[in-house]
């Protein structure tokens, strides 16, 4: 009963928020709506017994990524609205709806009535976090390491892209130059 209510509530809210993101003319509004939508998706994850993922969603998405977007928006002049002429509305809508329907059908059709096997065993004794950790560090270890490397690379690239005077090294400079460079 609660599950039903919660599901429909979260669904409506998510869709509403994301519609605002897509159709709003104001950049600030759309960003805020995006952040809201992220929270509600996290709600979905909790509904689906994926507590760890739900928390990670809130921390990473709404916390880090939206903060990044907010900082990024500070660079741009968000008062002037970008003029958008929405050409060929019908085509776009048709394409979008068609692709969504097709994806669902394609992905869901073999699953209807089929009986899949568990690849990774879920034992009821462990909580969600422990079982996730067990699966990750045994079966998906490589993926874990690689994503760590990828995050490192992303960080370095972020620094390199926007910084100036990368040649001057403060640590290795002399006392006299340090004063001037500061």
């Amino acid at each position, binding site marked *: 009963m609660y599950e039903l209510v919660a*599901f429909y509530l979260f669904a409506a809210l*998510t*869709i509403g928020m*994301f*519609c605002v*993101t*897509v159709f709003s003319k104001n*950049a600030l509004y*759309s960003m805020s709506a*995006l952040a809201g939508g*992220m929270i509600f998706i996290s709600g979905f*994850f909790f509904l*689906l017994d*994926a507590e*760890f*993922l739900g928390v*990670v969603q809130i921390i990473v*998405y709404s916390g*880090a*990524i939206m903060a*990044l*977007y907010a900082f*990024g*928006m500070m*660079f741009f002049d968000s008062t002037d609205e*970008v*003029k*958008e*002429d*929405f050409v060929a509305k019908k085509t*776009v809508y048709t*394409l*979008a*709806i068609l*692709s*969504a*329907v097709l*994806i*669902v059908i394609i*992905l*869901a059709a073999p699953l209807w009535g089929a009986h899949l096997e*568990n*690849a*990774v065993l*879920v034992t009821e004794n462990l909580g969600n976090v422990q079982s*996730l950790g067990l*699966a*990750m560090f045994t079966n*998906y270890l490589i*993926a874990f390491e690689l*994503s760590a490397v*990828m*995050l490192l*690379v*992303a*960080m370095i*690239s*972020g620094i390199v*892209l*926007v910084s100036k005077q990368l040649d001057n090294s403060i640590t290795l400079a002399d006392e006299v130059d340090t004063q001037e460079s500061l």
Partner: protein
Amino acid sequence: MIGFTHYLIVAGILFSIGLVGILKRKNLLMLFFSTEILLNATNIGFVAASKYYGDLTGQLAAFFIIAVAASEVAVGLGLLVLWYKRTGSINLDSLQIMRG
């Protein structure tokens, strides 16, 4: 009551909203927002699959997708800032150097 199909339908709707946003937006920043929507829609699908078939693979996939999305945002925003500094505009059409 709530079956796997319900979640798939929600994911599909969110996916189509994200597609509309990608095709519609001329502001590059808004384009990135729509990309985030797409990623989240797929996340819902994965986790729902994980729940209804008792398999943790779906949650792990969603996890890694979140990690990838984070790094993608970092790099993407960095590039966007650079472009803005160079051309002073974040309109999509200013990105076009080729003449059709």
